[in-house]
């Protein structure tokens, strides 16, 4: 019954999306009436889609095995949290989540966006409805989540044990919220281009969505990176895997958009460029979803591959992105450019930021798709790995970070004051780090060394925009910017420290053996069997000691029964200056065990930095929404 209700809700929501599109195209009569109608339909569509998603969650919580999706992906004995998270831990459920976020985002725009003129808002809501319509069609035609299974099996077929992890329960929805939040920027850009209204009003409407989506993408990527780090047991935190790149590309585009949208909102500049970025950011989200869902690129993330679904999403994204880019090409010539500015100015810095981010985006895009293109053109099979990405993208990222030493301190339009005094604190720190690392660690590579220098220099430099301001009256977005830039500095320090100072040891150890790594002396004490709710494991006990303290690490090799899978559960000891990371491998002959140990100084700064960046973004978002509210209130009063 719930399944049928859910399916009916989905059809109804699709019909409402079609109605919304028709009304927005002006088929609903008089303009003043129809914007109200468009708004109402958008809200109804959002609510009903939410209802369909709630129905699917309920089916998973009840373990209703007469529903195919539940039977294939859940199990009645699974812990509650994973039944719940299992709703989106599969193709159909995740696509329903996607379209739910899309519809709800549209509803929120319809409810709260009061500053845009009706025509532009109507066109934007129409664009949002057409996006939703396509994905509703995809769900209803090619990925029905509510399909029944008759006869119902006694129990389900479980969930990939790698996915039974609290972090992972919330990693995909966070990313999805971010991906789909960018759809609003896309729709607003389309609406603005259709109506020939590309200006500060569009940018102000777009800004909170870009900020919110970007914060969620940042959190999602940071959490995903930490998950891969401790769950895969490979000791790395970023693998340039196609699926990771699929989340990085929208993030890069959103980061560029986040910066350029401020120029448009505040100064009226960078109009064409900001619209392009708004289109590209959500396009990258769709392309990312497509790459992940179609299984077209070989990846450690395995998803069910279904050519029909791949073709369907490809057709959708070709249609949407193609139409939007064609619209851009046709209309952008009519957009007036904003106020001029000199190269040495805040705008100049932001343009440089945008160019660098776009080039990095291009590098990641080309690297991710190159194997596909190369095989299509020459039939040659190859893969593009970390050496390419690291050596091409990292130097550019460092240049970008170096730019952050000064650009946020520049004035708008034109900055005639000398640069050097404002650069001095950063330069002093960078020089000190250079001398320090040459003396203490002469052997480290050039990139990590520059990373340490620039990261450290950015710590004070990121806070300089706050200097000379009355801190109580400094707007929240400025605080947010300083905090986010400080987070970038922290993350860069973590990455550089990890690649410069990590020590790794692989040994075949017998119980009683001692291994030295970094400042630690690790004693391998014993291996014991262990049983969990749906797994059994062999657990090693390691006693790690250094000068002051002792830590006990218990890495496991876990065997899941249903479906049969082995995972390595790394054991990690975190201290203020780094992490000791241990993985228990296979038993080898004569009572020895493969034991892999890493000492990673300051590696935690990577994720701490990511978290600070997201926190900074949240502060800025709070500032925007709060100010926006008060403005809206003021205007509503004035118009009464």
């Amino acid at each position, binding site marked *: 019954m719930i399944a049928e209700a859910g399916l009916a809700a989905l059809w109804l929501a699709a019909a409402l999306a079609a109605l919304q599109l028709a009304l927005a195209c002006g088929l609903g009569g008089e303009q003043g009436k129809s914007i109200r109608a468009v708004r109402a339909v958008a809200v109804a569509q959002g609510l009903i889609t939410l209802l369909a998603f709630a129905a699917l969650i309920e089916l998973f919580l009840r373990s209703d095995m007469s529903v195919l999706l539940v039977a294939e992906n859940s199990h009645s004995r699974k812990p509650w949290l994973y039944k719940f998270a299992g709703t989106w831990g599969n193709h159909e459920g995740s696509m329903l989540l996607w379209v739910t976020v899309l519809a709800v985002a549209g509803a929120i725009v319809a409810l709260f966006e009061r500053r845009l003129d009706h025509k532009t808002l109507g066109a934007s809501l129409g664009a949002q409805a057409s996006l939703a319509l396509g994905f509703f069609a995809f769900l209803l035609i090619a990925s029905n989540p509510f399909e029944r299974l008759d006869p119902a099996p006694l129990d389900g077929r479980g969930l990939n044990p790698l996915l039974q992890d609290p972090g992972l329960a919330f990693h995909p929805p966070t990313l999805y919220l971010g991906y789909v939040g960018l759809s609003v920027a896309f729709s607003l850009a389309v609406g603005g281009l259709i109506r020939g209204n590309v200006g500060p009003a569009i940018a102000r409407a777009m800004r909170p969505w870009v900020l919110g989506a970007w914060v969620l993408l940042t959190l999602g990527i940071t959490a995903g990176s930490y998950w891969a780090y401790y769950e895969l047991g490979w000791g790395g935190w970023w693998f340039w895997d196609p699926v990771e790149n699929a989340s990085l590309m929208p993030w890069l585009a959103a980061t560029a958009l986040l910066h350029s949208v401020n120029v448009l909102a505040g100064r009226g500049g960078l109009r064409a460029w900001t619209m392009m970025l708004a*289109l590209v950011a959500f*396009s990258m989200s769709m392309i990312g979803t497509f790459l992940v869902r179609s299984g077209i690129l*070989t990846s450690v993330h395995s998803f069910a591959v279904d*050519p029909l679904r791949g073709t369907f999403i*490809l057709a959708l994204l070709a249609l949407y992105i*193609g139409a939007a880019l*064609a619209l851009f090409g046709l209309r*952008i010539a009519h957009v007036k450019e904003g106020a001029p500015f000199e190269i040495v100015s805040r705008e100049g810095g932001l343009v440089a930021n945008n160019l660098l981010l776009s080039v990095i985006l291009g590098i990641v895009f080309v690297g991710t798709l190159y194997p596909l293109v190369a095989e*299509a053109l020459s039939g040659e099979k190859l893969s593009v790995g970390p050496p390419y990405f690291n050596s091409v993208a990292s130097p550019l990222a460092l240049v970008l970070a170096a730019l952050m030493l000064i650009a946020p301190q520049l004035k708008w339009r034109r900055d005639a004051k000398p640069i050097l005094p404002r650069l001095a604190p950063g330069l002093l720190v960078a020089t000190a780090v250079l001398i320090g690392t040459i003396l203490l660690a002469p052997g480290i590579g050039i990139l990590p060394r520059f990373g340490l220098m620039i990261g450290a220099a950015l710590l004070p430099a990121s806070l300089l925009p706050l200097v000379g301001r009355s801190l109580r009256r400094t707007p929240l977005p400025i605080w947010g910017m300083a905090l986010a830039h400080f987070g970038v500095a922290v993350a860069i320090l973590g990455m550089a420290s990890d690649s410069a100072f990590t020590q790794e040891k692989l040994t075949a150890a017998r119980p009683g053996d001692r291994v030295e790594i970094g400042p630690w002396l690790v004693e391998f004490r014993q291996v014991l069997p262990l049983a969990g709710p749906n797994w059994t494991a062999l657990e090693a006990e390691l006693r790690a000691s250094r000068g002051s303290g002792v830590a006990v690490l218990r890495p496991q090799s876990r065997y899941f029964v249903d479906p049969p899978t082995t995972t390595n559960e790394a054991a990690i000891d975190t201290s203020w200056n780094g992490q000791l990371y241990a993985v228990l491998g296979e038993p080898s002959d004569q009572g020895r065990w493969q034991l892999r140990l890493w000492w990673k100084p300051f590696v935690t700064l990577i994720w701490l930095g990511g978290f600070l960046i997201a926190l900074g973004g949240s502060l800025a978002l709070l500032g925007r929404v709060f100010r926006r509210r008060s403005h809206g209130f003021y205007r509503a009063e004035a118009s009464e």
Partner: protein
Amino acid sequence: MNRLTRFLPLFILFAFVGAVAWRLSSPADEKIQSKMIGRAVPAFTLASAVPGKPGLSSKDLASGSPRMVNVFASWCVPCIAEAPLLAELKARGVAIDAIAVRDRPEDVAQFLAERGDPFMRIGADPESRAQLALGSSGVPETFIIDGKGVIRYQHMGPIEPGDVSALIKQWEEAR
């Protein structure tokens, strides 16, 4: 901004969609074919893998008539499955040599005693060097090499009943 720049992103999208549509229409072939096909067998000399049978060197493979080389191991389960089909190929006149990968003489001898021995020469390749030189990425694999010592064909994975006629055809063509 001139017209070309304005539409550039659209062209990039077309290229992307084209490449991806091509991939969707021709699903990925996970096998990695040897890059050595069409080239001469790289020089190697392998000692005998089992007492009483000669070893194998690259010179033996340029004997004027085509030869088949089976890359196998006694520890390889699919190799057991293809053993009767190798015997059938031999019965139909194909000259077969073998490379035993990462194996021990006594294990090879036992494998041949149990599963039959269709091979003229068997070279021992304890570190997979000759295997890698041929461009083989696993066991079992079967190569066809023409009379001049040029690699003509690579069959990956165990030979199945349906493959026999194709292998005979390749062998005839290598003459």
